[in-house]
């Protein structure tokens, strides 16, 4: 078991109003070989759960256990290292650094990890080549299309070879043809043993790529875990 999520609650306190319960007792296990599609209506708590799994946030109660350690109890520094070494995030809105060319965006995680500059550049260019952007390494995000930006973001997520990719609506801003390119990249990672959790509003994408679909509503996992046969696009 890669990640064990046990009765996780996440409450947001805003002012004096009653707290918002974004997650209300989520229990879920994710295996190393899985590609999990997270479905659910807007506001059901999907992003909240992703942030908790990715160590960007801590649960109000319950536990998320990775390699025997509870994420919620880790020091802020250890949590940072967890994000750096084991998780690759892909966001709906790309979240690239606009001032840096593509290759430097890909290299940002390596920079924080202390990879020397020459090595950073070599690996970043290699990764960009793998996502089909070898020619665009020197271009800044503003000079790239949405699909190209998302490919840069995927390359960045892969730069430190994570064990887990967390993709929150990675194709939400893209047309279907471009979505297919991104999904192919993510699927390729899954094929190489990387676990994937992907939030999507598109049930077709879920059936097409995921090994398992998890449906959420009102901060809870609503359907029993149903295994679906591996898809062949």
């Amino acid at each position, binding site marked *: 078991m890669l990640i064990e999520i046990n009765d996780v609650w996440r409450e947001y306190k805003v002012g004096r109003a009653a707290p918002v319960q974004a997650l209300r007792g989520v229990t879920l296990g994710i295996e190393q070989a899985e590609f999990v599609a997270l479905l659910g209506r807007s506001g059901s708590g999907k992003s909240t759960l992703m*942030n908790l799994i*990715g160590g*960007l*946030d801590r649960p109000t109660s319950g536990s998320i256990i990775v390699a025997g350690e509870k994420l919620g109890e880790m020091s*802020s*520094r250890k949590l*940072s*290292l967890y*994000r*750096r*070494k084991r998780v690759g*995030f892909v*966001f*709906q*809105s790309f*979240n*690239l*650094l606009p*001032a*840096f060319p593509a290759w*430097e965006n890909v290299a*940002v*995680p390596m*920079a*924080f*990890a*202390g*990879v*020397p*500059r020459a090595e*950073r550049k070599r690996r970043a260019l290699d990764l960009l080549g793998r996502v089909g952007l070898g020619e665009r390494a020197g271009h800044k995000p503003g000079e790239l299309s949405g699909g190209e930006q998302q490919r840069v973001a995927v390359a*960045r997520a892969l730069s*430190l070879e994570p064990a887990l990719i967390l993709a929150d609506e990675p194709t939400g801003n893209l047309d279907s043809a471009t979505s297919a390119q991104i999904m192919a990249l993510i699927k390729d990672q899954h094929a190489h043993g990387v676990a994937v959790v992907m939030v999507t509003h598109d049930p077709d994408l879920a059936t097409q790529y995921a090994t398992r679909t998890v449906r959420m509503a009102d901060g809870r996992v609503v359907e029993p875990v149903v295994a679906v046969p591996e898809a062949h696009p």
Partner: protein
Amino acid sequence: MSFAGVLTMALEGLRRKKGRASLTALGIFVSVLALTLIIGLGEGLTAAISDTLTSDDNLRQILLMPGFGERAENKGEEIVIIGEMSEARRARLKRAAMARAEMRVMAGRRTSLIDDASIARLNKIDHVTGIRPLVFERYDVTMDDQQTQATLTFGLDTERKRFAQRVVAGNYFSGPRAGEVLVHEYLLYQWGFVTEAQQANLVGKQLTLKTQDIAAAGAGALPQGITEALRNIEFTEEEHKALTTILPKVAASMGGREALQTAASKTLTIVGILRENEPSEPVAWGEVSLADVFLPDGTAQELFSAGALSAQLGYQRAMVYVDDPVNVVVVEEALKHAGYSAYSVASFVKQAQQALGIVTIILSFLTGVALIVATLGIVNTMVTSVLERTREIGIWKAVGATDLQVQAIFVTESALIGLVGGLVGLGAAAAAMIPGNILARRMILEQTTLPFSGNVFQLPLYLILAGPALGAAVAVLAAIYPARRAAKVDPVKALRHD
């Protein structure tokens, strides 16, 4: 912690907001520039004071000058203001009369003379090891058919072999009363002996010193301008005679010296030629270095004593030697108590250093205020930067930047601003010191007789390091609060799509 990412992000932050970063650095630049100049000036002046003035055994010496006596306060009793008037007005007029009486007394007479008797008396003050009159007088100098009027002469301390190193031809005096003179190369040059060989040839020749007549007659009482003018007019024999009779009376009527300087003259042998002193050569306290003819101490005193004026007025200056620098202040007080004016390097240096200290403190305080303002400017810039880059901070954190790395990015950015501001400030200060030193040296040489060759502004190694270090340190301090805010940014909130 890896510094690569930190530096990349910090430099990028600076690159993107070059204008703002430069303006922020300006505050540090100004502070470091001012501080470096102030401390550099303090360093230079302190060094200049101690190098130039405390060289030789200057610290054991006190320059003695005649006193002008106590303020004539009880004389006021004799002044009576008559006539009908209010008491207030009577008192006011009396005060005016007294002040004028006092001024006449002061101008006309030296109350405490430096003569042989008083020298013997002052020699008995504790810690005094000796008193040497400094004799500098103007004489008409004649050699063959060459003559220069009112040439300044100065008696040299033959025991201490003063100026011996400046003899370029011939020899130094053979003794304190040798009847010998050293002549300055410039006087000979003026007389037409241009080459060194021509000048060296003059060693062994006779030279006559003669008391000035007309100018000396009115000396002290007549305004300087008149004495100067008299010197430059060619008088006929008769006019000359008449003037020498009348001038002493004019002088006496103005409350000045009563007797005419009796003519004295002496013929001496040139033993050597003296060159001008180099700016680097130390000057002795109270020394007259602009003289053209130098005499052995004893000879100078004999010549001076031969004049009647000297008996009345005594020597103009004397040097009092003290056994140990620590006793200088005590002896100085004793001399002042005896009615003389006394000046020592020790008290001068003390006063100068006190004044310098106060000025430095005030200027440093002002610079400190500037530095605080600069610091607040940095805080402001960095907080703005953190707010603007919230999303970026979220991205850094999502890809694994630690809180410490996030803090370090902003601290580094700020430190670079401070370091660059400090370095440029240091550079500007160093550049300003070059013309500053030239200007100050020229001013000192023009306005004093000190052979000053040092630097008024100095840049010791510690000061070179201090400016940029201070700039960086202040900037790091200023970045602590903004950096903490940056580290506290919640990545989830920062990354929520817009």
